[in-house]
C-alpha cells in the first residue's frame, strides 16, 4: 500500500536515533502511586476551576428563574412543613420537637444522598471534559462535593427559619457541625471516586445505587425518631447512614454527636480511603477508556 516505505525511517523507530534521549535513564515514568497522589493533590489546588464549575452547575439549573437556587430552599421548606404535619399527626408527636428533627434529617440526608447519587455519574457525566482535556480526575469529584455543599447551604436556611420559630439555640455545640461536614465530605470523596469508577465500568450500578439509597432513606431515622426502636436499637446503631446524619443533626439541635458516631464515621472515612486509593491507583488510567 505504501510503496516507498523502505525509503523512510518508519521501521527504525522514527525519530529515535542511537543517541536518543529516550534511551537515557531520565526517561522514567512516575509510578502509579505518585500519579494517583498527584491527581488528588493537583485536583485540590485547582479549586478555582472546580469552584467555578460547581457554581455553574447550580446556576445552569436555575438560570432565568425568579428565585434561582432559592427554589431549593423553598421546596425543602414545603417538604419539611407538610411532612412534619403529616407524620407528626400520624405518630402523635410534639411538633416543637419533631419538626426541627425532621427538618435537619432531611437536610442532612439531602447532602449525603446527593453526593452518593452524583458520585455515580461523576465520570460518566463529565465525558465531554474527560475526552477533550486532561484534567486531574479528582476535579470532577471536588466539583460534585462542592455543588452539594452549595445546595446544603441553601437548604440550611430552612433550618435557620425553623430554629427562629421554635426558639432553638444550639449554642457553641452548633460549631461541631463544621468537623462533621468535613468528615462527610471526606467520606463523600472516596465514595464518589469508587462509585464513579465502578459506574463508568458497569452501567447497571447507578440503578442499583439509586434504589439502595431510596431504601436507606426509610431505614434511617429521618422521618422516625430512633427512640421508637428502643428494644431494637442495634438496628439503628449498625446503620452507618444514621451516624453520618447525626454529625449534622445532633450539633444543630444542641447535643454533641455521640462518641460512637464519631468513631464509626471516622473509621469509615479512613478504611474507605485506603481501599479506594488502592483501586484508584490501579484503575485511574482506565477511566478515560471506560466512559
Amino acid at each position, binding site marked *: 500500500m505504501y510503496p*516507498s516505505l523502505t525509503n*523512510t525511517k*518508519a521501521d527504525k523507530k*522514527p525519530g529515535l536515533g542511537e543517541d*536518543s*534521549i529516550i534511551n537515557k535513564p531520565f*526517561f522514567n515514568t512516575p509510578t502509579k502511586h505518585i500519579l494517583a497522589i498527584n491527581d488528588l493533590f493537583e485536583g485540590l489546588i485547582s479549586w478555582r476551576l472546580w469552584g467555578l464549575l460547581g457554581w455553574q452547575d447550580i446556576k445552569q439549573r436555575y438560570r432565568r428563574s425568579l428565585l434561582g437556587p432559592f427554589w431549593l430552599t423553598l421546596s425543602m421548606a414545603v417538604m419539611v412543613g407538610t411532612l412534619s404535619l403529616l407524620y407528626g399527626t400520624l405518630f402523635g408527636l410534639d411538633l416543637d420537637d419533631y419538626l426541627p428533627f425532621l427538618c435537619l434529617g432531611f437536610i442532612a440526608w439531602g447532602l449525603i444522598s446527593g453526593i452518593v447519587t452524583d458520585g455515580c455519574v461523576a465520570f460518566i457525566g463529565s465525558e465531554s471534559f474527560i475526552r477533550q*482535556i486532561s484534567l486531574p480526575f479528582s476535579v470532577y469529584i471536588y466539583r460534585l462535593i462542592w455543588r452539594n455543599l452549595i445546595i446544603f447551604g441553601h437548604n440550611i436556611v430552612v433550618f435557620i427559619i425553623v430554629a427562629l420559630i421554635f426558639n432553638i439555640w444550639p449554642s457553641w455545640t452548633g460549631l461541631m457541625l463544621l468537623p462533621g461536614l468535613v468528615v462527610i465530605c471526606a467520606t463523600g470523596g472516596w465514595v464518589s471516586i469508587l462509585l464513579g469508577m465502578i459506574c463508568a465500568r*458497569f452501567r447497571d450500578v447507578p440503578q442499583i445505587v439509586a434504589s439502595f439509597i431510596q431504601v436507606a432513606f426509610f431505614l434511617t431515622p429521618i422521618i422516625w425518631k430512633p427512640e421508637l426502636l428502643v428494644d431494637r436499637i442495634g438496628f439503628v446503631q449498625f446503620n452507618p447512614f444514621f451516624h453520618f446524619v447525626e454529625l449534622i443533626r445532633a450539633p444543630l439541635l444542641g447535643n454533641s454527636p455521640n462518641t460512637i458516631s464519631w468513631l464509626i464515621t471516622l473509621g469509615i472515612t479512613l478504611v474507605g480511603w485506603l481501599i479506594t486509593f488502592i483501586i484508584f491507583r490501579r484503575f485511574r488510567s482506565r477511566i478515560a*477508556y471506560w466512559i
Partner: protein
Amino acid sequence: MAHIYLEDVAVDFPLYSGASRSLKTSLLHLGSGGRIGRNLSNRICVQALHNISLELNNGDRVGIVGPNGAGKTTLLRVLSGVYEPSSGKISRSGKIAALFDVALGMDTEATGYENITMRGMLLGLSRSEINSKIDEISEFTELGDYLKIPVRTYSSGMLLRLAFAVCTSVEPEILLMDEWIGVGDAKFLEKAKSRLDDFVSRSQILALASHSNDLIRQVCNKAVLIDKGGIVAYGEVTEVLSIYEKTL
C-alpha cells in the same frame, strides 16, 4: 524545554458490548464456575495505536496525516494526556493546550464574559491572567456589548469567534490541534489568520492533525503519516506527504 517522547506506545480500546458491560455477566460467570479471566479476555479490543515511538522537541511543528480512522485523533489525545497508553512509555514536559473542541465548557445561558472566564480556566489560566487578557479578547472578538448578554443569543459565527479569541489568548508551550481552527466570517478571516499564526509561533511544539495537505505544508516542518494505528513514515513534510499522496 518542552518535549514529548513516546516509546512503543499502544492504545487499546476494550469494546464492552452491552452484555459484558453489565455487572450481571461478571457475576453470572462467577456463578456458573466459568473462569472470569478467560471470559473477560474474550472481549474485543480495538487497537487504535500500536508501536508508536515519537520524539517531539522544541521547534517541532508536526503535521499528523493519514486516512480516516487511522488514529490521528487518538494520537493527539495520547499526546495531551487524555488517554494514558495501554502499554509503552510517555514523557512530557511543558504546558499543554489541547484545542480539540474550542467550545468545551461553554454555557449557552451564561454571558460572553462569564464564558471567557470559564473557557480560560479550562485552558489553565488563573483569574488574574484572565482579567488581564479580557480587554484584549473582547476587543478582538468585536462583539462589544454582546459580551454582556447570554451567548444563547449569539449566531454560531459569533460563538466561534468568542471561543477562538479565548483559545488563542493562552500561551502554551505545547499546542495540540485537531484540524485548524476555522473562523467562518470572510471579513474576520484575515484578522483571525494573523492571530493564529502569531499564536502558533509562540508555542514551542505544535502537533496538528489535518486532512489538508496544503495546510500542513504551510505550517509544519515535520510530518508523520499514520495508518491503521501505526506510524508509516516520519520526517520531512514533503517526503512524508509524497508517500501519503501516492496512496490517495
